[in-house]
């Protein structure tokens, strides 16, 4: 049926099975989806071991999350799988929006040059998981991936967590300092701990279908409001790798889910979209109702919730999977700092506040899209249809047409722990912003990307005129008392300079960061600007870093 060969990962007898006292681990992750796997890899890259338990033994069945945004790809790249994802993924650029049979507008996402990663790619969740699992295998001593291990019992306390696990051979228990619950929208851990998961359900049903079409079928992403060829309220089609197309049908609240998910019925709808002459093969389909909900807090003593376990949104805008990966990006360096005793456990409260803010932003955007796509009263419908009618002629109304606002990096500007900006530096890289990428050259003249050099460390990035200042800045930075601080110096040309100097070969680092001589950025390990100064002043770095680690402290 499907071309994709679902891998089966072997169950192995856990060494703790049948042994009296449970072993204690630094981190257990429940759920080997994209979020849990990314978390294990991120921690492993920082030297932290984890056990990952999953009740299944394969990847996501069906394509599920397919749209991966630039920031997520940059995080995947930091985790060592970004290039593989973009090599396989479909990078689409042209999108068209229709009302009935009339094209309202089209857009061409010609990306701004000078970034390693594209605006986004389409890649089935099963590939994303497979690549992450294969990447995790690069850390055999740090990632212990346990298939067919189902978390079924949890005891949480201020000092650790005990987890009860069922396997095909019987039950056992594990103890851990910290537990990351990445076990999805129906999180077992959340349910067992009795946490509320409140929000609103939208009275709408969607049929999502994956089909394989002729390779020549157009790659454009197309969205119809009230299509004339089908009874659905809206239809979206976009391309994934392997000539697989995802088609979403907005069925209406009264649709019969059982009848609609029958293969023949789904294929009839697909043929109405693509035309009877196009050869199509069924891959997978599902009918779903979506909701927006979040936990009030993502951290409960020693249990940390991430991804869909902590928050869910409607799929329009691709904010589910992308939001979950941003959770991991935000969490893992903090958890690693706490486990290394470099930061108090209360640092994790900033995970709750920052990613709570991210979840709220995603829920707000996705609720607005839903309000546009699913008018609830005739007044709402008249306004919505008015926008669609005007959009055919008037540019202003196109900005109001809302078939989903695609995931953008969440800005943490103004959040506690980030420096205020005094406006002394040109450019948009305010404290709280995810760092923009740019092409650079190293001392040997090899081409690379800025984000690669930022890595997963705290970084002091300083603009210098030439390599002459490098040694002194390196020494002063190493004495400023920030553990693991990496120094990145940006010069017009790095050839022959010290290894810490990067050449701004196209001038884009300077342009994007307002990089006059002396301009200094302190950057968190998740590549967010923490503070910036117009001049190099090493004594300011430590204070800003302390504020970051201790931002929870009143």
């Amino acid at each position, binding site marked *: 049926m499907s071309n994709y060969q679902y891998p089966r990962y072997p169950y192995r007898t856990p060494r703790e099975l049948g042994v009296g006292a449970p072993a204690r681990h630094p981190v257990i992750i429940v759920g080997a989806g994209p979020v849990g796997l990314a978390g294990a890899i991120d921690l492993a890259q920082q030297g932290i071991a984890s056990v990952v338990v999953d009740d299944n033994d394969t990847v996501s069945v069906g394509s599920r999350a397919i749209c991966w945004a630039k920031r997520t790809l940059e995080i995947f790249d930091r985790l060592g799988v970004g290039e593989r994802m973009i090599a396989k993924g479909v990078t689409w650029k042209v999108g068209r929006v229709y009302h*009935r049979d009339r094209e309202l507008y089209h857009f061409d996402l010609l990306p701004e040059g000078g970034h390693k990663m594209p605006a986004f790619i389409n890649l089935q969740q099963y590939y994303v998981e497979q690549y992450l699992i294969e990447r995790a295998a690069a850390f055999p001593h740090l990632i212990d991936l346990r298939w067919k291990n189902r978390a079924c019992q949890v005891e949480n306390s201020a000092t650790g967590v005990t987890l009860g696990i069922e396997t095909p051979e019987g039950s056992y228990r594990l103890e851990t300092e910290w537990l990351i619950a990445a076990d999805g929208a129906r999180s077992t851990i959340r349910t067992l701990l009795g946490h509320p998961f409140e929000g609103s359900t939208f009275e709408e049903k969607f049929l999502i279908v994956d089909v394989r079409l002729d390779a020549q079928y157009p790659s454009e992403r197309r969205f119809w409001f009230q299509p004339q060829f089908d009874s659905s309220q809206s239809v979206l089609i976009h391309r994934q790798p392997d000539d697989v197309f995802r088609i979403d049908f907005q069925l209406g609240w009264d649709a019969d889910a059982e009848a609609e998910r029958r293969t023949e019925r789904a294929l009839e709808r697909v043929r109405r979209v693509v035309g009877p002459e196009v050869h199509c093969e069924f891959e997978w389909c599902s009918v779903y109702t979506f909701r927006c909900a979040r936990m009030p807090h993502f951290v409960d003593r020693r249990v940390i919730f991430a991804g869909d376990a902590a928050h869910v949104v409607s799929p329009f805008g691709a904010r589910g999977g992308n939001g979950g990966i941003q959770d991991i990006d935000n969490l893992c360096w903090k958890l690693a700092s706490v486990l290394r005793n470099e930061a108090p456990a209360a640092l994790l409260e900033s995970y709750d506040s920052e990613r709570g803010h991210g979840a709220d932003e995603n829920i707000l955007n996705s609720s607005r899209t839903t*309000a546009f796509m699913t008018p609830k009263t005739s*007044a*709402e419908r008249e306004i919505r249809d008015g926008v669609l009618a005007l959009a055919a002629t*008037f540019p*202003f109304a196109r900005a*109001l047409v809302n078939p989903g606002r695609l995931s953008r990096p969440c800005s943490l500007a103004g959040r506690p722990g980030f420096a205020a900006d005094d406006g002394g530096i040109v450019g948009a890289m305010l404290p709280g912003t995810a760092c923009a990428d740019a092409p650079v050259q190293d001392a040997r003249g090899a081409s690379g990307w800025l984000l690669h050099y930022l890595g997963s460390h705290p970084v002091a990035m300083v603009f210098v005129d030439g390599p002459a200042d490098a040694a002194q800045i390196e020494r002063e930075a190493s004495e400023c008392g920030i553990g693991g601080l990496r120094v990145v110096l940006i010069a017009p040309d790095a050839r022959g300079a010290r290894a810490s100097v990067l050449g701004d070969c196209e001038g884009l680092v300077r342009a994007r960061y307002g990089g006059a001589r002396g301009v200094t950025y302190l950057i968190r390990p998740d590549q967010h600007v923490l503070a910036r100064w117009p001049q190099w002043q090493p004594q300011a770095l430590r204070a800003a870093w302390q504020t970051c680690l201790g931002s929870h402290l009143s």
Partner: protein
Amino acid sequence: MRALQLTDGFGGRGDQFYECLITTHQGLSDGESRALNARLVLLLANHIGDLEVISQACTAARASLAAVAVQQP
């Protein structure tokens, strides 16, 4: 003569405007919603004040209705 602005006038905050408009209608009957829209038109027209601009908006709205009517006989 001032021309009716037809490009984005919300400075990128169109979604916020749309949400505000929908929220204002929440809980109203269809009749009340029509009455609300009439009052909104009057308030916004008074704020604009420029009769030439308002008249262009009236023409554009009317023309859009006609275009939709042609499309949906």
